[in-house]
């Protein structure tokens, strides 16, 4: 009753013809490498006979909805405000989002893994408060305080990881509780007062510029580049997609799922502490109020606008970076246009919905295509 030709056992001898068909996409592989697509979306071009047309189509498809949105936003803002498209302002946008970006890189890993980390913003505040307290109250050398602060960040992340991997606590709940704890502890350390007076050289992170761009921006871009390469080429990074898509399949493939959970939450905590250094250098102080819930929401928004799925298995550093820039451009542009700051979150909310809806629509169209072909 099958319409398809019966696979006849003798086809093994005619395998060479089949082999050619199967290996044909291999020849176009270098082209695919030139335009790096994030692995999860099944966006590989159909094996078209004309390779250049296929390459063009592939390049076209790799231009994601968020990127189109970002370009449109930049064009519109440039038309509406004469100040927007000036080098100074563009650098300014990057500076404004740098600490959010560093946290968002960590959050991307967590979300691809299928988890969520609500504690990052609180860890930012807490870890830098530890740095300042060790420096001011205990007189540690500042470089050692920085290392201690990074260790605190990674440590809180590790606690999250242990609760989730071995305590079977849902990520939302585990990180919600560490978020409260970290927020409370950073207030408790100094009774809610800020610590001022950090070494002058430390402010260099915020003040020193290379080619007109502040060091913190390079730090953020470095995090994204390393994170992107790790996700795409290192076995551990790639395993996050496998775990996020289906952790049982990943486990039965010999991937150490729990070890990866520990590692990823620790990295997210570490990066939050790095973001804490950026904020501290900018303020030249440790503020107990640094790292509030609006920072946390911006972090998650950047990842989600960038195309990651909270269900796990989908997301990329490139996408998150674009999402981050969209948020930065919106905040900056709306301020330049004198839109009430109270209205700005409304716009960001609308953008998140737009991003997710357009993504879902795209996926739906792709599915329909596959179905028609099959």
């Amino acid at each position, binding site marked *: 009753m099958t319409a398809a030709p019966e696979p006849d056992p003798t086809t093994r001898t005619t395998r060479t013809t089949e082999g050619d068909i199967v*290996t044909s996409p291999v020849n176009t592989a270098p082209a695919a490498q030139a335009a790096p697509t994030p692995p999860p979306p099944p966006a590989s071009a159909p094996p078209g006979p004309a390779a250049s047309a296929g390459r063009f189509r592939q390049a076209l498809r790799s231009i994601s909805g968020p990127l189109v949105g970002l370009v449109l936003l930049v064009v519109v803002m440039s038309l509406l405000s004469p100040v927007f498209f000036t080098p100074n302002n563009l650098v300014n946008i990057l500076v404004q989002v740098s600490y959010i970006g560093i946290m968002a890189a960590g959050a991307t890993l967590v979300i691809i893994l299928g988890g969520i980390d609500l504690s990052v913003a609180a860890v930012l505040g807490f870890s830098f408060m530890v740095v300042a307290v060790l420096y001011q109250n205990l007189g540690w050398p500042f470089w050692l305080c920085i290392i201690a602060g990074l260790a605190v960040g990674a440590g809180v992340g590790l606690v999250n990881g242990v609760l989730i991997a071995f305590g079977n606590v849902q990520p939302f709940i585990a990180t919600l509780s560490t978020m409260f704890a970290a927020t409370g502890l950073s207030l408790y350390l100094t009774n809610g007062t800020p610590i001022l007076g950090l070494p002058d050289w430390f402010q260099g992170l915020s003040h020193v510029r290379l080619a007109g761009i502040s060091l913190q921006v390079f730090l953020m871009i470095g995090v994204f580049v390393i994170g992107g390469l790790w996700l795409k080429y*290192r*076995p551990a990074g*790639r395993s996050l997609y496998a775990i996020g*898509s289906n952790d049982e399949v990943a486990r039965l*493939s*010999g991937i150490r799922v729990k070890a990866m959970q520990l590692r990823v939450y620790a990295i997210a905590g570490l990066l939050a502490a790095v973001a804490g250094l950026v904020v501290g250098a900018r303020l030249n102080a440790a503020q107990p109020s640094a790292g509030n819930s609006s920072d946390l929401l911006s972090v998650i928004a950047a990842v989600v606008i960038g195309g990651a799925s909270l269900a796990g298995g989908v997301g990329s550093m490139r996408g998150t970076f674009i999402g981050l820039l969209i948020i930065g451009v919106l905040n900056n542009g709306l301020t330049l246009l004198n839109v009430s700051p109270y209205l700005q979150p409304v716009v960001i909310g609308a953008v998140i919905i737009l991003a997710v809806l357009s993504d879902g629509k795209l996926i739906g169209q792709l599915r329909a295509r*596959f179905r028609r072909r099959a």
Partner: protein
Amino acid sequence: MTDEIATTLVATGLIKRYGEATVLRGVDFTLESGTVVGLIGENGAGKSTLSSIIAGIKQPDGGSMTIDGRPYAPSGPLEALTSGVAIIHQEIKMIPELSVAENMFLGRVPTRRGRVDYAGMYESASGVLAQLGVHLDPRMLVGGLSTATQQEIEIARAILREPSFVIFDEPSASLGQEETERVLEQIGLLRDRGTGVVYISHRLDEVSAISDRVVCLRDGAKVGDRPAAEIDRDGMIRAMVGRSIERRAIEPEPHGSEVVARVTDLCSDRFEHVSFDLHEGEILGLSGLVGAGRTEIVRALAGADPFRSGEVEVRGRRVRIRSMSDAIAAGIVMVPEDRKTQGLNLNRSSAENIATPWESRLAKGFVTRRFLTKLKKRMAEELDIRGDLDKPVGLLSGGNQQKVLLGKWLVQKPTVLILDEPTRGVDVGAKEAIYEIIRGLSRQGVAVIVVSSELEEVLLLSHRVMVVAGGRPRDLLDREQATPERIMQLSVPS
């Protein structure tokens, strides 16, 4: 619906297909009030499909049903219930946080003036429970009750609406001896009240004891329908297995003499005292009924689940298996039984799926596109996988998906390859191709363990067959001893 008791349910020429596989090929079935029909057959013979169709859970692709001459074509279980047909499932589905009565009335809670009529609910629940001889407070929460008691509540729920026909789908699978006897007693009560009962079970002695008639299915067709008095246990087994299956068309080639793996007294919570040797190139079949512990044994061996005690030796060296990684390092790999939830990430490409276990083991530091392409190309050629391997694997046919899954574990030649249901959900042509791949691996010296619910498959491939029942190995049969009748006799709990 309570006043008129229907007397005859007739199904004619029922057909059911799943994709390319036909699981019911024109089955006729009659159930009369006040009788118990035992429904038997091998795994996959179509028993559950037939009962699901009668109970309205699944809709047939052909054939028709009538109740007392009136057409009966339920679109769902609720409609079936309204027509007087109820089913009691193998797995108990209850909400532990609700009371006994609330569970019984789930989805049709009685109300009075817009409020739940608890008094009325408890009263009718107690009434039904009492009819069954169950002494239970309907206000108790289901959560703390034993499986056996929950099974009784399930029965009470089914007969709450006084159905004319009740189907029991392997109710005894999770019950002990005493509890099973109580269920059988309750079935007797139902029969005496004029209810028509279908009783599905692998425990043939129970079927003999309770049934008036025994119907046997094989490969989706009815192969026997006789009064229970005229058929004994051996007769039932013969009917289930059928004429000796046309096999031995391809005798497996003799395997090597070197013992490559030895399992000694493996025990866990799910199985006990499992011991066997595997020779180079040997194919060992693992047979038994669903739930006998076959899958549990091989999962433990592959490091997927922990085991309590026992030793595993590979090529003369003792290996500690505490995780999948340990097993893979020792050369033991497993193709799990459920391709869709355990074997493959359906939304990721075939190439990525094949590479998943090996990225951290074979790629030198970085996973390059060249690495992925090499693996993909090699497996496509070796296993003759057709289709675009850069597209999500879920878009391939079942047979090709299964080949991708095999390829995933053949990147490095294993010492022991475990295949749990290697041909589930693939068409006949792909099945042959997979058998040929398995034979080829055996020729290369790979020891293979095949777990399969299809007796035919086990007999066709294996050098030796281990039969498991109730978590214990019953016997290890040579190819000559491994007849379908013998295996079935060992499989069925006595």
